[in-house]
């Protein structure tokens, strides 16, 4: 993983970095995600394309942890982002300057990054949005039935 370079999986993934939270939405899986602190910063850096050592080095300038400790914590995080299809491996790297972590703070407590994934809207995002409403008050996927069989126009 150390040599691999990753990027945010645009244009399928859209994200916004608010002051306290980064919210990302994957338009093709219908999943949305919430990231805080170092996770949000790492995600913003991944938009620039980065390897794990590059991320760790950049994050160590903001958080009170060494690059090695951060790199170790990033492994699971990167795997989680890949599993959620939020990032992709970069085949051919583009030229860019040094990574700049958002904000000017330094020495912040380092919390191992993680991503919270919310899958409850997937059935609506993706075909088919034939939803009837369940007791929980949210549209539900209809089960395929006899009416779905092909027939003439």
């Amino acid at each position, binding site marked *: 993983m150390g040599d691999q370079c990753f990027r945010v999986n645009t*244009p399928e993934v*859209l994200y*916004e970095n*608010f*002051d*306290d*939270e980064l*919210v990302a*939405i994957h*338009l*093709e899986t*219908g999943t*949305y995600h*919430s990231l805080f602190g170092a996770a949000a910063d790492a995600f913003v850096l991944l938009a620039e394309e980065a390897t794990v050592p590059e991320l760790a080095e950049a994050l160590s300038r903001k958080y009170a942890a060494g690059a090695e400790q951060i790199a170790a914590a990033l492994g699971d995080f990167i795997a989680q982002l890949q599993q959620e299809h939020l990032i992709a491996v970069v085949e051919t790297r583009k030229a860019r300057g040094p990574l700049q972590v958002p904000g000017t703070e330094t020495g912040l407590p380092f919390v191992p990054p993680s991503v919270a994934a*919310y899958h*409850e*809207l997937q059935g*609506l*995002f*993706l*075909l*088919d*949005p*034939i*939803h*009837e*409403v*369940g*007791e*929980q*008050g*949210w*549209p539900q996927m*209809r089960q395929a039935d006899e*009416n*779905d069989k*092909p*027939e*003439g*126009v």
Partner: protein
Amino acid sequence: MDFASLLNEYFDEAAEEQGLASERIHLAGHPIEFCFAGDRWKDLTRALVHGPASFPGKPGLRVMVWDGEERTPRNHVLKAYLFAMTNWWFDYVGPRGQLLDVQAHGFEAYYVPGPDLLYAVDLKSNTAFCWKRHSSPLPDWEVVSPFRSLLHCWFRAQEFQFVHAAAVGRPNGGLLLTGKGGSGKSSTALSCLNSSLGYLCDDFCLIGQQNGTYSAFGLYATAKLVGAEDLARFPCIAQKVWNPDREPGQKAAFFLQDHYPESFVDHFPLKGILLPVVTGQRDTSVVPCSSSRAFSALAPSTLSLLPASGATDFRFLTELSRALPAYELRLGTDIAQIPLVLNDLLIAGREAASLK
């Protein structure tokens, strides 16, 4: 001949045979003409907010509505395409229902397999199409909020954003209520009927932005409630349910403008975003919350319910969430308190603004 022209021709053939009916409605200040081949689908406009009845001249958008029950298109290419697409739709549509072979710049088309609905919008000619393969009844959700996909596409081109939210207020200021189903949006909106606050919508509205001010515009004059408990909380409204014979678990729907025309407000500038939370306590209160929470409540559900949604919608919702103050609305069981608390919030906001 392009796909829009083929659909237009097909509609004309159907209208020639079954008769043409039309209705003109203003939505968010835009004159829209709904044209029907025959009278089977004429009632679909009942769910839309009805303001001034008619307007002179050319409409901003012309929506053609018909079905394929009686006739197939004369054009063999369109006939073959519709036959193949509706029978083997999984080969013809993308993950969100987009018709892969006919999507083009300025032309968006979507298919909904269950009710066999095809929606298409041609932005170049400001024409939209709603074609149903059969005359079978539409699902309740489609009757209560019809033409969603095509209105979303067209209004986005007019710089109005379709939003999944309820809204209540007065002509000089109102509040957006957002959150997933069951959070209390509808109950909050319905609690404002017959109060000092007007009702704009319970599920979807349009939002426009001018000179930094965001305004909500009514779209559907309907409301939905989840179950018997909700209905019991609103006994007056419960008597007016449109679908008394619904399946278990289906929402009860109401055509509110038929019963509460005086409670409707057609637009207002937005003063805040509220995230209702059912507490089980007696009293209702509001506490400030973050923009990111408002965005998380607003954006994913809005994007999920609009198959044509994408980066433009995302950006609008981001800016909206950043621009307006956000509050958690802690809903109490004393329903009469809810409009009073919202009213106080609007007054407090106005006084704060006048002090600046």
